[in-house]
């Protein structure tokens, strides 16, 4: 079947308005929020599970690849087509199908925006706990594919901890159910296995998520430090004191100044680093923990600890954090955010290493990250029009990830492997180990038509690492 014939058939199934195939319409789908690019052959907008089934059957027959896509806010190229195949965009499958408060569950279509689910249930005192910084735009289907986290992951876990059931369409068009509203199901936990599989096993068309009770009280603290070392040591000390905050974020001095200029969040311009710390729960417990955290901060040479006095102040402090990357974007034509993780106690030395890497390559690297769980987001500023600088940026990113791994850490804490880091996987996994993963992928996706060339290395047997494919760079 020719591609044109395939498009004609797809139009007859989905309707003319649900198929994009002209080059100018496709350009928008060439990239996500990260580094990678790839032009799809067509973009489809299914409205029902049955549409997805029909598309999968057709694609399977035609031997054309399929890539699911939510809002395109991903940072690792997960929602980009690498071989000119079909993109399934879920913006029209965006209904909340059921809110079941007695069971503390919601059943949603994959295109539902993360924050919209919370908006739909917060009046009843519930919310959807995973809170990626892009939660105003990103979709729950995308969260499931990437196993997304966010600042409050520290206390509440990532997406997989909040998904109990999935309806999945497999590449052959079969619809399967995995799990449901119960917390566990007899047999293998395929729900848990599917979350974070980056669209390589099947396409989730309905998702059962947990709804979490909103805490009655929260305290948001801003610890202000003269040096980044003191802030990093505080992270270790808070853990040692037996406190698990709901969120524990760090911004280095240079970054917070940039953010402050853009967002006016109230971060002091002359500080070396700030910690944004939140505790949530029962009023009495929050008061005690907030007091304990303040003590620890001061013991670790915090210059000052401020506490948000009301919801508006709290929101302002978070606004700085959630818009931090956008603020950095004002300074530089491009930026490249890494997502490495280290054990918490290794944060101080890792930050020093990142600083050295910046000096070595002559690059400015900002640090805004989930300090509480050791998930770094070194943000490298560069000009993508400058080929040399781009190459140095990639090398710096790789140095940082290698260092994270050498300390017992990992490549990605929440952004996913995608196409950006697929060729880095051998840094973490043996050839044999990747064969095991490949065998599992083949069990679901035997012809490799679902999201090809993602998650696992594109070069088989690649002990020798290569730079990931990056034809052009997004500003």
């Amino acid at each position: 079947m020719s591609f044109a014939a395939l498009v004609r058939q797809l139009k007859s199934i989905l309707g003319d308005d649900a198929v994009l195939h002209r080059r100018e319409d496709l350009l928008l789908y060439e990239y996500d929020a990260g580094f990678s690019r790839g032009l799809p052959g067509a973009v489809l907008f299914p409205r029902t599970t049955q549409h997805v089934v029909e598309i999968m059957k057709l694609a399977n027959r035609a031997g054309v690849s399929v890539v699911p896509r939510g809002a395109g806010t991903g940072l690792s190229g997960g929602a980009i087509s690498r071989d000119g195949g079909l993109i399934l965009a879920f913006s029209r499958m965006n209904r909340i199908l059921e809110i079941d408060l007695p069971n503390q569950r919601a059943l949603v279509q994959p295109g539902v925006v993360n924050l919209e689910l919370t908006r739909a249930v917060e009046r009843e005192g519930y919310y959807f706990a995973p809170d990626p910084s892009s939660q105003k735009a990103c979709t729950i289907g995308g969260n499931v594919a990437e196993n997304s986290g966010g600042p409050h992951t520290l206390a509440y876990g990532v997406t997989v901890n909040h998904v109990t059931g999935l309806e999945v369409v497999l590449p052959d068009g079969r619809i399967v159910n995995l799990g449901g509203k119960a917390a566990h199901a007899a047999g293998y936990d395929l729900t848990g296995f599917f979350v974070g599989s980056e669209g390589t096993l099947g396409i989730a068309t309905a998702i059962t998520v947990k709804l979490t009770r909103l805490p009655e009280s929260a305290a948001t603290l801003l610890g202000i430090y003269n040096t980044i070392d003191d802030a990093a040591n505080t992270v270790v000390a808070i853990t040692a004191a037996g406190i698990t905050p709901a969120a524990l974020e760090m911004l280095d001095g240079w970054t917070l100044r940039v953010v402050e200029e853009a967002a006016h969040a109230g971060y002091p311009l002359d500080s070396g680093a700030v910690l944004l710390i939140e505790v949530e729960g029962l009023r009495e417990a929050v008061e005690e923990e907030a007091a304990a955290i303040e003590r620890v901060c001061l013991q670790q040479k915090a210059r000052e600890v401020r506490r948000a006095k009301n919801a508006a102040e709290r929101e302002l402090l978070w606004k700085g954090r959630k818009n931090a990357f956008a603020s950095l974007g004002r300074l530089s034509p491009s930026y490249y955010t890494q997502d490495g993780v280290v054990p918490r106690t290794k944060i101080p030395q890792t930050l020093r290493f990142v600083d050295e890497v910046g000096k070595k390559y002559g690059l400015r690297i900002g640090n805004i990250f989930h300090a509480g769980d050791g998930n770094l987001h070194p943000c490298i500023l560069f000009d993508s029009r400058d080929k040399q600088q781009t190459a140095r940026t990639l090398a710096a990113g790789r140095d940082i990830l290698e260092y994270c791994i050498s300390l017992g850490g990992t490549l990605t804490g929440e952004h996913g492997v995608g196409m950006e880091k697929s060729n880095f996987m051998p840094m973490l996994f043996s050839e044999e180990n990747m064969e095991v993963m490949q065998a599992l992928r083949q069990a679901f996706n035997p012809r490799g038509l679902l999201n090809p060339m993602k998650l696992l290395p594109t070069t088989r047997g690649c002990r020798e690492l290569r730079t990931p494919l990056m034809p052009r760079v997004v500003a």
Partner: protein
Amino acid sequence: MSAGLSGVGLASELAAIVGGAHVVDDAAACAHYAIQGVAPELVAAPGSEEEVAALLRLAADHGLAVVPAGGFTRQAIGDPPARADLLLDLARLTATEHYDPGDLTIGVEAGTRLADLQARLAQHQQFLPVDPANAARTTIGGLLATAAQGPLEHGYGGLRDFCIGIRFVTAEGKRGKGGGRVVKNVAGYDLMKLLIGSFGTLGVITSASFKLFHLPPVTRTYVAEFAAPEEAIAFRDRLLRSPLTPMCLEIANPRAAEYLGLAAGPWRLLVRAAGSEAVLGRYRAELGQAVPRELEGEAEARLWQGFSAFEETILAGHHNAMLFAVHVPIAEVAPALAAAERAALDYNFLCAAIGRAGVGSLLVAFLPIAVDPPAAMQYANAASEFRSRLPEEQASAVVLHCPREAKPHFNLWGTSPTDLEAMRAVKSALDPENLLNRGRFLVG
């Protein structure tokens, strides 16, 4: 099983891998390792992951059916092995891979005993929030393979929520791992989820890493009593909508009392909380009149040990009891308990039940009435009756224990909301020859 399997040849090949002292090949000694009456032909106790891989490669080459074993605390679950050519005794794998209390993570080998691990963590006021039966003998590998949980699941989540890394060897001898040592990690497929609760059918777990938690310095347990289950559930619903976030929220039916060391009588909800006096005072205020009794210290610890040991206590008193692990949506807890009582009664059993009322995970025991021991078919019929009364496609009721004679008469695993064909695809991807724990699980 092939003839001459236990012959000198194979035993010496095993000995070449693990050393002669760690191979058992005489029938009398192998009988000590019997699982549900099936004695393995050979036993090997590997001392490292490399040795596990070498043993599994050897087993695959010879087409041997392999049975992994840890503390032998949950080997009675499922059907007897269809074949047990080689038992892997993983008790020697007890090394710690990493533990820095400041990281709040630990990695240990699969043969590590849960109680030993907890004792070690307690020195740093930390713990792994899992409290299944028989922690003294339970190994980490067995804990994960059987997804054993206890009352702490309410407040801390399940193993799938805090196991952050796993290493295992497939039936073909390939070494796999998922996750790693850090609390946040999305590199590669989440193989922890796949291995947890896989009952040794996808791979032999060799080590795992966990996120740890701080041991709460002070806890208190509030015991609420009710004449009828509806009242208990209404109280639970009020509690779930309140700002309280207890560690445990356990329900017990009247018949369960005697197996928990409690006085006979009412339905109970047990709420365990941690925190300062101010926090505990708030619990008291919110819980209100329904709570006539508070437990702390020794008495509290004993009560929760009783909940963890429920399965053992039931089986000590009723060797021919039938025990289910039931998973339902939260709102189905009361109907599931009613279904259990009804099905038990219909087939001449009494029903004792406890469980995580706020999670929807229950332990249900069908106790035979002493004067009239049930026939094998009665177990099958009672299970079928019970399952038919649970919400379709949303519930699981897995038999954890029943007399061996009854097992051939019904499906111990019941139905699952999860697609069976997809499970089979996973099984054949990792164990194409069906060598691991053959015939014991839902698939394979």
